[in-house]
């Protein structure tokens, strides 16, 4: 890929809903080509942070991707700047085939002349993505009939053909089997060669294996940041997680289930 890698730079980001502040002055830098994991107890503001970056909720502060300011732009404009995301629940178009899903994702810059014509064959970037996500043999299957893990890969594939340079993934491996998790992790590593990846995840085993850096959020603020080992050693992180028995199972220090 010839395109340059960019980083994500968040400064003093704040989001509030009717007096409740969900994200309270977060600043963080994600280096180009990083795989950054965002963790934190429920309600820490992880998803809201991603919502703010992608323009879904109004926020104050500054979010730059490379040298472009994202805040204040409408959702589809931010998307066209190369910022792509997935949701906790899979949102592939179930009534369309895998190929059609990818083709739509690849086509945001198409003009009406192209749109109003039928698709012939498979565009190169779509074929490439089909190989990367391992769904080439299922290209003509309805997305709704895919297994759960396959849907998540399709979503990632859609971000690839969309030519997203920043991938924001919200719990991509939730509900996946061990084999699927491994495959997903390898997919992320492959993808991050020419892209920047941010992952919200609760699965600590997955995090330890594939995270390059980690940011811990708590009550809308950054609690800790660093490599997996650094964060695990941070006493504040341990305190927060021990103070929330519900989340104890997901705490970095806890043993795996």
């Amino acid at each position, binding site marked *: 890929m010839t395109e340059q890698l960019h980083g994500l730079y968040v400064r003093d980001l704040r989001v509030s809903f*009717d007096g409740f502040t969900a994200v309270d002055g977060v600043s963080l830098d994600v280096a180009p080509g990083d795989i950054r994991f965002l963790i934190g107890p429920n309600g820490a503001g992880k998803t809201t942070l991603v919502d703010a970056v992608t323009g879904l909720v109004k926020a104050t502060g500054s979010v730059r991707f490379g040298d472009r300011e994202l805040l204040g732009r409408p959702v589809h404009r931010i998307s066209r700047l190369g910022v792509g995301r997935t949701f906790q629940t899979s949102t592939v178009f179930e009534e369309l085939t895998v190929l059609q899903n990818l083709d739509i994702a690849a086509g945001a810059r198409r003009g009406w002349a192209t749109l109003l014509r039928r698709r012939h064959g498979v565009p190169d970037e779509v074929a490439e993505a089909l190989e990367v996500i391992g769904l080439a043999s299922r290209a003509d299957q309805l997305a709704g009939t895919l297994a759960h893990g396959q849907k998540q890969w399709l979503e990632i594939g859609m971000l690839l053909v969309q030519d997203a340079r920043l991938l924001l993934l919200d719990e991509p491996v939730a509900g996946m089997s061990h084999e699927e998790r491994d495959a997903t992790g390898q997919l992320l590593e492959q993808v991050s060669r020419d892209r920047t990846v941010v992952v919200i995840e609760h699965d600590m085993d997955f995090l330890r294996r594939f995270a390059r850096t980690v940011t811990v959020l708590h009550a809308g603020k950054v609690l800790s940041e660093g490599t997996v080992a650094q964060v695990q050693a941070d006493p504040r992180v341990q305190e927060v997680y021990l103070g929330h028995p519900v989340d104890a199972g997901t705490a970095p220090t806890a043993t795996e289930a």
Partner: protein
Amino acid sequence: MTVLIGQLFTGVSIGAVLLLIALGLALTFGQMGVINMAHGEFIMAGAYTTFVLQQVITAAGWSLLIALPVAFVVAGAMGVLLEILLIRRLYARPLDTLLVTWGVSLILQQLARDIFGSPNVQTRAPELLTGNIALPGGITVANNRLFILALAGGAVVALTVALRVTPLGRRIRAVVQNRDLAAVSGIATARVDRMTFFIGSGLAGIAGVALTLLGPIGPTMGTNLIIDAFLVVVVGGIGQLKGTVIVAFALGVLQASGEYLTTLSVAKVMVFVAIVAFLQWRPQGMFTLRTRSLA
């Protein structure tokens, strides 16, 4: 000046009628997201209840008073039946609910025709409610309008209190704000839905009783009202009653003044244009519950 005040009162009383017919919708549409096109036929059921009661209880005043609770129960029961038979299956498909309940409204209208005949039926109003109060300055205020205003006010207060204070009301609000959370917190959401529907439909029955004082009682009386009522709820915003109340009165006064200055036809078109313009400004209506959920 006299005319101006008279018109203002007319506008307010149009608003009261709108409020009364929209209140039930504010609950079923606003709180539950169910578009019930048969709501107008529940109003009709309330009006026919008054008619039937008057065949038994001939004193107009008593029959009207008794009709209020009876119509509430009759229309409410119809609503619950509809909820159990059809709407329950359609919570995830609001647009389909609209079409299905429209089919139901056709059936109910024909049923009314077959039972009561196509022509309108008449009820007698108590003499007290056919008169008016003369205020100084030549202004007269019709008693039936005052009664409806009081009824609408009473219904709003009762509903607000019920939603705020009673355990059922708290459950209803919990379900509206977060259905899943309410469910895992041990609230039987299906039963709460049914109760909400009972109350919402029952309010339509009460509106039906009130309308016997103003207009015709016939099989198609509901269809003329339903769109206006929906517009009130849409503009008022979902999930809160105060929007419905404010918008009902605002549209009433707008229509009355528009009609006074031009004609009723033009006034109706004016109201429509105003609504589209308003939704440009606030697409979610006047008041909405803000939630964190995905838009």
